[in-house]
């Protein structure tokens, strides 16, 4: 591998990593606030991608215009799931188990729904070809746009959590539910909002992802594992960690894909996830959980 190839892979991996970062933020947020992982997260990503695909092929809608539509759809879906399913789980010791099983059920509903609506084939959105050449390297236009959009959404989320009253309430619930309750925060409402936000972020990531890769209804689980792996690598509740983890995963996939095969690249997320959990359970940049 010469230096140019190396740098090119570095660029490609970082671009993909940006979208992975956005992908993982949803799972990170929901996990932090509710202590539950949404096993349907990857399927929402996939559904967001297919929504963009459908809007593009059917109505010629630019994926960047589809982005807010996808976000709105994901938000609604998340709110409904939390309001009518997860929110009804009695908060006892079995709650985590029941919630996991529920999101597992939701996952199959979305997979099968997507198969019925959009078929079982791999699809992608080819709305912009070519690339920009900077310093002898190729920057594929779609990747740059996806990276920038992912960055913009991530920064907006960060600002929302940091500076708005509701965002602070979300963080408060994540840090100390009892304390938040004492301060008068309506925890069920925050949970509905958080789960909605999580799905919205997943759908947004899906819209961006379908510009870069081809997707099919059955690949959602792979993205759930990837999002979770990024969260584990970076550490729960850490924004810089999530970004570092995402870029690390993007790079690892691109490099193993180049050096070995695409199939091994698909499994690298799981191996990283397992390695980090066994060696440093709190994540590379995360704080230790009680």
């Amino acid at each position, binding site marked *: 591998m010469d230096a140019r190839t190396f740098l090119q892979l570095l660029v490609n991996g970082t671009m993909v990593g940006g979208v992975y970062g956005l992908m993982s933020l949803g799972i990170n947020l929901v996990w932090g606030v509710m202590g539950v992982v949404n096993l349907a997260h990857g399927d929402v990503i996939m559904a967001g991608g297919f929504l963009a695909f459908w809007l593009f092929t059917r109505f010629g809608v630019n994926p960047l215009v589809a982005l807010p539509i996808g976000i709105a759809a994901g938000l609604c879906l998340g709110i409904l799931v939390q309001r009518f399913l997860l929110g009804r789980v009695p908060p006892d010791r*079995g709650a985590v188990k029941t919630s996991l099983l529920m999101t597992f059920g939701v996952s*199959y509903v979305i997979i099968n729904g997507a198969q019925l609506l959009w078929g079982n084939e791999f699809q992608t959105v080819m709305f912009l070809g070519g690339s920009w050449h900077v310093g002898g390297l190729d920057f594929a236009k779609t990747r740059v746009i996806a990276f920038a959009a992912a960055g913009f959404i991530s920064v907006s989320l960060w600002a929302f959590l940091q500076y708005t009253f509701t965002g602070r309430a979300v963080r408060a619930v994540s840090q100390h539910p009892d304390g938040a309750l004492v301060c008068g925060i309506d925890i069920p409402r925050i949970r509905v909002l958080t789960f909605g936000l999580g799905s919205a972020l997943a759908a947004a990531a899906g819209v961006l992802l379908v510009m870069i890769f081809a997707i099919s209804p059955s690949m959602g*689980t792979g993205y759930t594992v990837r999002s979770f*792996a990024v969260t584990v690598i970076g550490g729960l509740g850490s924004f810089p960690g999530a970004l570092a983890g995402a870029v690390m995963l993007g790079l690892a996939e691109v490099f193993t894909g180049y050096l070995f095969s695409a199939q091994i690249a*698909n499994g690298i997320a*799981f191996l990283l996830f397992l390695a980090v959990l*066994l060696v440093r359970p709190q994540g590379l940049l995360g704080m230790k959980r009680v």
Partner: protein
Amino acid sequence: MATRDARGDRVAVRIRIGWAALAVGIAVVAVLPFFASDYLVGFFFTTFLFVSMAYGWNLVSGFTAYVSFGQMSFFGIGAYTLAILVSRNAWPWPIAVLAGTATAAVLAVPLGWAMLRLRGPYFALGMLGLTQVLAMVASAWISVTRGGEGIYLPPEATLRQLYYAGAALVAVAVVVTWAVDRSAFGLRLRSIGEDELAAEAMGVDTTMAKLASFVLASTFPAMAGGLYAWRLSYIDPASAFPAGYEVQTILMAIFGGAGTVWGPLIGGFLFTAVGEVLWAKFAEVHLLLFGVMILIVLLFLPEGIIPLLRRRRMRRRAPVGPAPIREEAA
């Protein structure tokens, strides 16, 4: 005191009815292949596979609180071991099935050691990822598994042989679960499910107990996978690691009652009987229906059928005195 005796009699009658139903069930299963159509025998064979896998899931996820979404990993290991041994080394079928089961159990030791250090969502995601990675290994390791091309097997088995093998597997699953349920080992597993930290503080070697249940639970899907490959006479990554089977297995176990001895059996049979009618009509949406049914069971029947019946009976039996303590949902 009189009422108590009457109550005791009623319980005795009920137990006798239970044994009688079991005896009739075994007799029907034993003679069925002699007069039923191939379709019906095949249907029962498939049901046996699912019921035994539901028992496997029940052992690890019903007793302890570790929800496994990756039991199909062992199904695939069993299926592939059988296919490789039969196609390359021409092993006889029954021995290859047992070898597949043993392989899965041996592999379950290091896998369980790594996975069971994870808890809650970590464990769930770990197991979910494991099946995916194994399916990938199966398609990438072409020299052994022939990758996506798959392995064709000589169709030697008769349906009747498979049927009895499946029935035996279910019988073993029931007996093992029954024995575990009554043993100190079962109690240890339940204590882990209730509160792992407290169990550990009480002196339970939680790591050993969890690992033992994990390994034990891996053998049932592995054997089911071997029988399945035998029936199909063909195996490829998609059929060895079928995602839809995972959800169906879990659904049967929680429908019947997770952590009970008879739940997977009753849940499994009721479910497939209803399913056989439904899936034939709505083949395209069967995954969606599974998903919706999981949600419905969790919302309205979170403990499954068996605990529901048991509680009903308790209520009828105790008209006076303090109300029975409501079991906490586990």
